[in-house]
């Protein structure tokens, strides 16, 4: 498409010339996009508070599960420790590094977007989605190994587990599964931001959707920061 080609050309010019070059900011949305932008005014402060309110409901969702974890951990400390040792600590650590790095890329993408470098922000968003796929791949592998050993709800080995260890694995599948769903949603949201930034609908002057997508992604990272030591480090 001609307009897409023009935008890509402008992005290349933007990255060639740097933030002080004239071309960096000459990328205007196409006429129909300009109309769209005009018809969709952004209340940045309201949007951000709304996003945080949504994130609070996410905290409630996961907070309830963390509450459950703390109660059962206090009751079955020894069984939780034993079951936690059967998880692959190396893969868990690698996944932590992957997710932290993806958060770094998103923070960097938002910073570059705010400072007038949307093309660079888009590259970083793509890197983030790549890291998210790596995270999901490792997670899938971990689950697949456990399933192979019959360690899944209803599996043969699962039903023979002592009650405390079964509770551990119930919580493990529930919490890491719910977290993985959030990673998938965040992945899609970041791709939408990638596309909208490319079409000139998210710009350095209207970055709030990218900022809010970043907030969501950081929350996903935040939840993993607690999931990792609780499940993988056999406290």
């Amino acid at each position: 498409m001609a307009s897409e080609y023009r935008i890509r050309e402008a992005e290349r010019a933007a990255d060639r010339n740097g933030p002080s070059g004239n071309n960096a900011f000459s990328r205007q949305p196409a006429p129909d996009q300009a109309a769209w932008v005009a018809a969709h005014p952004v209340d940045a402060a309201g949007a951000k508070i709304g996003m945080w309110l949504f994130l609070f409901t996410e905290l409630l969702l996961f907070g309830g599960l963390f509450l459950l974890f703390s109660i059962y951990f206090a009751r079955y400390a020894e069984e939780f420790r034993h079951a936690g040792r059967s998880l692959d600590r190396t893969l868990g650590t690698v996944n932590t590094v992957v997710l932290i790095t993806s958060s770094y890329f998103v923070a960097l993408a938002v910073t570059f977007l705010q400072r007038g470098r949307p093309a660079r922000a888009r590259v970083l968003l793509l890197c983030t989605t790549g890291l998210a796929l790596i995270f999901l791949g490792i997670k899938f592998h971990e689950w697949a190994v456990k399933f192979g050993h019959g360690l899944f709800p209803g599996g043969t080995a699962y039903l023979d587990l002592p009650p405390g260890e079964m509770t551990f694995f119930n919580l493990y599948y529930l919490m890491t599964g719910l977290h993985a769903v959030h990673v998938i949603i965040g992945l899609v949201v970041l791709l939408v931001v990638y596309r909208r930034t490319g079409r000139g609908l998210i710009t350095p002057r209207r970055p709030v959707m990218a900022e809010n997508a970043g907030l969501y992604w950081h929350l996903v990272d935040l939840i993993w920061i607690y999931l990792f030591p609780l499940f993988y480090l056999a406290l």
Partner: protein
Amino acid sequence: MKHRLPPLHPLRDPLTPDWNGEGEPGLSPRGCGIVWIALLLLTGVTVQAARLDVSNGLVHVFIAMTVATLKAGLVVLWYMHIRYEGGALRLMVFMAFLFLGISISFTFFDTAYR
């Protein structure tokens, strides 16, 4: 329907040709990198601390949760820009995390020492 974006100071406006990002408030690319390194170091700390041999298992819980909360603080304050937000949003977020922390930690200590 006409919509006008609020005017920016020319030097703060990323769309002016001579804007170069200098002195822009908010998180800088350098700041992102420093926080990233700090998060990686803290991950290393928590993994190593879990290998320590301690008599009371609760010491592990305490260290791991302290490090996790430090990491969470870095993410919320810098990556989620709470450092750079206004007082209302800061208060909202602080209270939300405070009450979440109280409900989870008090429940844990209540059931652990019953």
